[in-house]
C-alpha cells in the first residue's frame, strides 16, 4: 500500500516538472487543431447565416498557415540537418514528415474547395446548398429532414471535422512512438467516419457506408492496439527508437522481469505483423481492402476524394516510418510478406476493376491497385525507395482529388450520375470536362507526360534497384490490366453515342473549378518536368532516428 502510495507520489512530483514542448516545430499540427477548435466555437456561437463564410475562411486560413509553417520548417533545415524528435520523443520533425505534411495540407486546401461548392445541387427553397445533408441527425426521408431542408439548413460542421481529420493525419506520419501513432489514427479516423455519413442524396447508402467503415475501422484498430501491446511487451517501451535498439540488440534488457519475454521473438513478430496490418487497412491493401469500394461509393464525393488522397498519404507515411525506423532489423521477415500483399493488391485491384459499372467503385478498386504499386516502392528499403514513394503520393493524391471533383459535376435528376453507362458520349456534349477526366485517367494508367508515369517509373525503378525485379514485372502486368479499364472509360466518353436522357454537366463555382484546375496543373507539371520534385523528394527521404 505504501509502495503504491509512494509511486503515485513520485509520479506527481515528476510531473511537476513541465516537459519542454517545441511549439515552433509542432506548429503545423497545432495551427490546424487550433483552427478546428475555433470552428467548433463558431458553430456554437455564430449566427447560422454567417457560419458558412466564416468556416470556409477559417479552414482555409488554418490550412494555409500550417502549410506556411511546414515550408518555413523545411527551409529552416528541419527536413535535413536539423531533423529532430520533438514533443518529449513523441513526434518526429524530419524530411519525410514535413514532405507528407505538406502534401496533406495542400490536399486539404483543395478538399476545402470541393466541400465548399454550393452551385451543383439545385437550390433548396432559395438557399444554395452543398453535397452534405441538411440535418444529419434527422431520419432519412422523415419529417425532421423535410423541415430542415425547408429551413435551408446546411451542415457547416464539416469544416471543423475536416480540420480535426487533417490534424490527425499531420500527426500520423510524424508519430515517433506507438501510442502517438494510435491516437493520431483515431483522431483522423473518427471525423472521417462522421463525414462519410453526411451525404445529402442517397443518405441510407451513405450511412451504411459510414457504419461499415466504423465497424471495420474499429476492428482494425483493435488489431493495431493489440500489436502495440505485444511490441511493448517485447521491448518494454513504445518509443520507435527504443524498440529499434532492442530489436538490433544494442541495449541490454531494461529490467530482469522483461528479459524472458524479450527472448521470445514471437512477441516481436506477431506484434509487428499486427501493427503493420492496422496500417495496411488504412491504405486499403488486399486483403484488408474490402471496405474501400463500399465506403468510396457511399460517402459524399468530396469526402471520398479527400479520404482517398489524404488517408493514403498519411497511412503510407506511418508505414514507411514504422518499417524503416522500428523494424529495419526485421527486414528479412516482413519483406516477403509485403511482397505478397503488394502483388495481391496490384492484381486484385486491377482485375476486379474491369467489371465495375460505377465510376466511384471503379476508382476505389483503382486505388487498391495503386496501393499495391506504392507498396512496391516501400519494399525497396532504400533511400530512393522512400523518395519514390513520397513522389508517388504527391502525384497520386492530386490526380485522385481531381478525378473525384470531376465526378461531382456529372449529374442527373438523382444527383451525381455515377453509373458508367450514363457517361457514354460525354465527350460529345462536354468535351472539356471529358478531356480533363481523360487526363486524370491517363495519369492513373501511367501514360507518359502525366504525373502517373513519373511516379510509377520512380517506384518501379526503386523496386528494381532494391532487388524486387519480379515485383516490377507483376506491377507492369497489373498496369497493363489497369490500363484497360481506364482507357475503356475514355473510349466510352469519346467514341460512344450519347444517350438522349444522359446526365448534364453542372457548371461549378470557382471552388470546384480551382480544385480541378490545380489537379490538372499538378498532373501535367509533374508529368512533363518531374525532376525538381523528384529531387525535392530525394532530399526529404531520410528519417530521423
Amino acid at each position: 500500500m505504501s509502495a503504491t502510495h509512494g509511486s503515485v507520489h513520485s509520479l506527481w512530483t515528476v510531473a511537476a516538472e513541465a516537459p519542454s514542448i517545441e511549439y515552433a516545430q509542432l506548429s503545423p499540427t497545432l495551427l490546424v487543431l487550433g483552427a478546428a477548435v475555433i470552428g467548433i466555437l463558431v458553430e456554437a456561437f455564430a449566427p447560422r447565416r454567417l457560419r458558412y463564410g466564416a468556416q470556409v475562411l477559417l479552414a482555409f486560413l488554418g490550412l494555409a498557415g500550417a502549410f506556411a509553417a511546414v515550408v518555413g520548417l523545411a527551409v529552416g533545415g528541419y527536413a535535413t540537418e536539423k531533423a529532430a524528435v520533438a514533443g518529449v520523443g513523441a513526434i518526429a520533425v524530419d524530411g519525410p514528415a514535413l514532405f507528407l505534411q505538406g502534401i496533406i495540407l495542400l490536399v486539404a486546401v483543395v478538399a476545402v474547395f470541393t466541400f465548399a461548392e454550393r452551385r451543383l445541387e439545385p437550390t433548396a427553397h432559395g438557399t444554395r446548398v452543398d453535397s452534405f445533408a441538411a440535418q444529419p441527425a434527422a431520419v432519412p426521408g422523415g419529417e425532421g429532414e423535410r423541415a430542415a431542408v425547408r429551413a435551408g439548413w446546411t451542415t457547416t460542421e464539416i469544416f471543423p471535422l475536416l480540420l480535426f481529420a487533417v490534424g490527425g493525419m499531420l500527426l500520423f506520419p510524424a508519430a515517433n512512438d506507438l501510442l502517438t501513432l494510435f491516437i493520431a489514427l483515431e483522431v483522423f479516423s473518427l471525423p472521417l467516419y462522421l463525414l462519410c455519413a453526411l451525404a445529402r442524396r442517397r443518405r441510407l447508402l451513405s450511412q451504411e457506408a459510414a457504419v461499415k467503415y466504423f465497424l471495420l475501422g474499429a476492428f482494425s484498430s483493435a488489431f493495431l492496439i493489440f500489436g502495440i501491446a505485444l511490441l511493448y511487451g517485447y521491448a518494454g517501451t513504445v518509443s520507435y527508437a527504443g524498440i529499434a535498439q532492442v530489436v538490433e540488440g544494442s541495449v541490454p534488457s531494461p529490467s530482469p522481469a522483461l528479459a524472458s519475454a524479450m527472448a521470445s521473438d514471437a512477441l516481436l513478430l506477431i506484434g509487428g505483423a499486427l501493427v503493420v496490418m492496422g496500417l495496411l487497412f488504412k491504405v486499403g491493401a488486399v486483403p484488408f481492402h474490402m471496405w474501400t469500394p463500399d465506403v468510396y461509393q457511399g460517402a459524399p464525393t468530396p469526402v471520398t476524394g479527400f479520404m482517398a488522397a489524404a488517408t493514403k498519404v498519411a497511412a503510407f507515411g506511418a508505414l514507411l516510418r514504422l518499417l524503416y525506423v522500428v523494424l529495419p532489423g526485421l527486414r528479412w521477415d516482413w519483406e516477403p510478406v509485403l511482397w505478397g500483399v503488394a502483388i495481391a493488391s496490384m492484381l486484385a485491384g486491377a482485375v476486379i476493376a474491369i467489371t465495375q459499372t460505377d465510376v466511384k467503385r471503379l476508382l476505389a478498386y483503382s486505388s487498391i491497385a495503386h496501393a499495391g504499386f506504392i507498396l512496391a516502392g516501400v519494399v525497396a528499403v532504400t533511400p530512393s525507395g522512400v523518395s519514390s514513394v513520397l513522389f508517388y503520393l504527391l502525384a497520386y493524391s492530386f490526380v485522385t482529388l481531381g478525378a473525384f471533383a470531376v465526378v461531382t459535376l456529372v449529374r442527373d435528376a438523382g444527383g451525381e450520375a455515377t453509373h458508367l453507362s450514363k457517361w457514354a458520349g460525354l465527350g460529345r456534349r462536354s468535351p472539356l470536362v471529358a478531356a480533363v477526366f481523360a487526363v486524370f485517367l491517363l495519369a492513373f494508367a501511367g501514360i507518359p507526360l502525366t504525373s502517373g508515369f513519373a511516379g510509377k517509373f520512380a517506384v518501379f525503378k526503386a523496386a528494381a534497384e532494391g532487388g524486387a525485379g519480379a515485383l516490377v514485372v507483376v506491377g507492369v502486368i497489373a498496369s497493363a490490366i489497369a490500363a484497360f479499364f481506364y482507357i475503356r472509360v475514355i473510349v466510352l466518353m469519346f467514341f460512344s453515342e450519347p444517350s438522349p436522357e444522359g446526365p448534364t454537366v453542372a457548371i461549378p463555382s470557382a471552388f470546384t473549378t480551382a480544385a480541378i484546375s490545380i489537379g490538372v496543373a499538378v498532373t501535367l507539371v509533374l508529368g512533363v518536368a518531374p525532376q525538381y520534385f523528384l529531387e525535392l523528394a530525394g532530399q526529404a527521404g531520410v528519417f530521423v532516428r
Partner: protein
Amino acid sequence: MESLIGLLVAAPLLGAAVLLCGGRRLDRAGHWLGTALAAVSFALGAVLFFDMLGRSGGERTLHQHLFSWIPVEGFQADVAFRLDQLSMTFVLLITGVGTLIHLYSVGYMEHDARRRRFFGYLNLFLAAMLLLVLADNYLLLYVGWEGVGLASFLLIGFWQHKPSAAAAAKKAFLVNRVGDAGLAIAIFLMFTTFGTFAFGEVLAAADGAGEGTLTAIGLMLLLAACGKSAQVPLQSWLGDAMEGPTPVSALIHAATMVTAGVYLITRSGAIYDAAPNAQTVVVIVGAVTLLFGAIVGCAKDDIKKALAASTMSQIGYMVLAAGLGPIGYAFAIMHLVTHGFFKAGLFLGAGSVMHGMNDEVNMRKYGGLRRHMPITFVTFGLGYLAIIGFPGLSGFFSKDLIIEAAFSAGGVRGWVLGGATLLGAALTAYYMTRVMLLTFFGEERWRHRPTATPAEPDVEPAAGRGAAAPGRASGQTAGQAAGAAAEPHPHESPRVMTLPMIVLAFGSVFAGGLFNWGEAFVHWLEPVTRFEHPHPPLPIPVITGATVAVMLLGVGLAWLQYGRRPVPVTAPRGSLLTRAARRDLFQDDFNHAAFVSGGQHLTRSLVYLDHTVVDGAVNGTAAAFGGLSGRLRKVQNGFARSYAVSMFGGAAVLVAATLLMRAV
C-alpha cells in the same frame, strides 16, 4: 565568304516558309517573291563563284560549320556546308536554271488558283536541292535528299484533284523509298565502318576499309542513285511524274533533282575506286538504262513522256560515265550541266506548245507548228540539235567525250560499252527527230480532225480558249474536254515564258564548246574528282566520225518514217517492239507481277493472321481476365461481417507468414 553559303540555302527556304504560311494575302505577289528569292540565291552563287575563281586550285574549297546537330558521345552529326568546285557547279546550275524556270512559271501558272503554293513548293525544292549538294556529310545530304523527294512528291501531285496525278505522286514516292532505304543503309554502313559521316573523313579512309564493305556501301549508294535518277530497275516513276506541271518536269525531272544520283556517285568516287565490283554494276546500270530509255522514247506519242524517256536515257550516259572512274567523272558532270540546259529548254518548249494547244500532249495531234510558234520552234530546235549531238553544239562535246571514255574502258568491256553508247546516240537522234517532225513539221493535224466530235453549239471558239487556260488549273480532263469542243488556236507564249527558253537555248548552243575550250571544265573539277586522260583503242577522230554518222543515220531513219510520209492521227498497231516500248518495256507489268501482287497477298495473309491468331490471343486474354474479375467481385457481397472475416483471415495469414519466414 563562308557565311554566304548558308544564305544560299536560307533564301529559298525563307521563300518557302513565307509562301506556304503566308496565306491568301500573298496570292497577288507571292510568285514574284519566290522568283526574287531564287534570283537572290543565284546572285549569291555567282558572287561565291567569282570569289572561288580568284583563288588557286588547292584553296578553293570553303567550309561553313553552322552548329552541332546531334552532339553525343561517339555520334557527331554536324550541320556544316562544303563548297568546292563540284558543289559550285551544281549551285550555279540549280539556281540558274531554277531562276529561269521560276520566271517561266509566272506565265505558265498564271491562271492557276494555287499559284502561290506552287511557288512555295518550288522554293522548297531549291532549298532542299542546295542543301543536298552543299552538305558536308552524308547525314545532312540525306536531309536534302528526302527534302527534294518531298518537294517532288508535292509537285508531281500538284493537281491532286486528278486521280492520275495523285497516283503518279504516290508511285514516285514509293519507288523513291526503295532508293532512300539504300541511302540510309549506306550511311549506317559508313558509320559502323568509319565512325563518321563527313565526306572528308569517309573518303580519305575509304582505301583502308575492306573491299567487301566498300562494295556493299557502293551498291547501296547505287540503289539510292537509281531511285532518285530513275535508273533501271527503279526507273518506273519518271514517266508518270510527267503528270506534274511542265515547269516541274523541266526543273526537277530533267535538269536537277534526277541528276542527284550522278552527284552522289561522283561525290563518293573514292569508295567506288576502291570497289571495282560496285563500279562494274554502276556501268551496267548506266548502259542498260541508256538503251532502255532510248527504246521507250522511240515509241511514245505523249511529248512529255518522250522527253522523260530521253531524260532517263541521258542520265544513263552520265551514270555510265561516273562508273568509269576518274576518266569519266568530269565528263559525267559536264554532260549533266549541258543536259540541264538543253533538256530544260526542250521541256519548256513542250510546255509552250501545250500552252498554245489547249494542253494537248499527243504529238500525233500536233504538226506544222513552226509557223505558229516561231520562238518556241527555234529554241526547241536548238535544244534538239544539242541533244542529238550536232557538231558544234553542247551535246556534241559532252556526249562525244563520254563515248570516247566508254571505249577507253579497256578490252571487251570497252567495246561493249562503246557500242552501247553509239547505239544510244543513234536512237537519241531517231526519237528526237521524231518529236521534232511530229510537232513542228508536216501537215497541221490539229486542223482536220477526221473524228471531230460535234462542237457544243453554245461554246464559241473564243470562249473555248478562255476555258482552256483555267482548264489547266482545273485539270487535264477539263482541258481535253475544251480541246475536243473547239479547234485549238496555236499561238506564241508570252514574253515571260519565251525569255527563259531563249536563255536556255544559248546555253544549249554554247555551253559545251565553252566547257571544252582547253579542257577548262575538266581542269576546274580535277581537284575534286581527279582526272585521267582516256586512251581509246581507236583514234579519236574515228570515234567522233562514227558518232556523227550514227546520228545522221538516226535522223535519216526518222525522216523516212515521219517526214516523208503523212503521220496518222491514231497510232498504228506497230511492231512487237513498238508495242512493248509503248508499255515502257513492261516495267509496270513486271513490278506488278513481282512485287505488287506478292505484297498484296502478304498483306492479306497478315491481316488474316492478325484477325485470327493475334486478335484471338488478345481477346482470349481479355475474356479470361473479365471472367476472373466477374468471379472475384462476387466476394464483395456488401456484408460487413464477411469483410471482417476476410480481414481476420488476412491478419492470420499475415502473422503466420511472418512467423513462417523466421522459421525458414
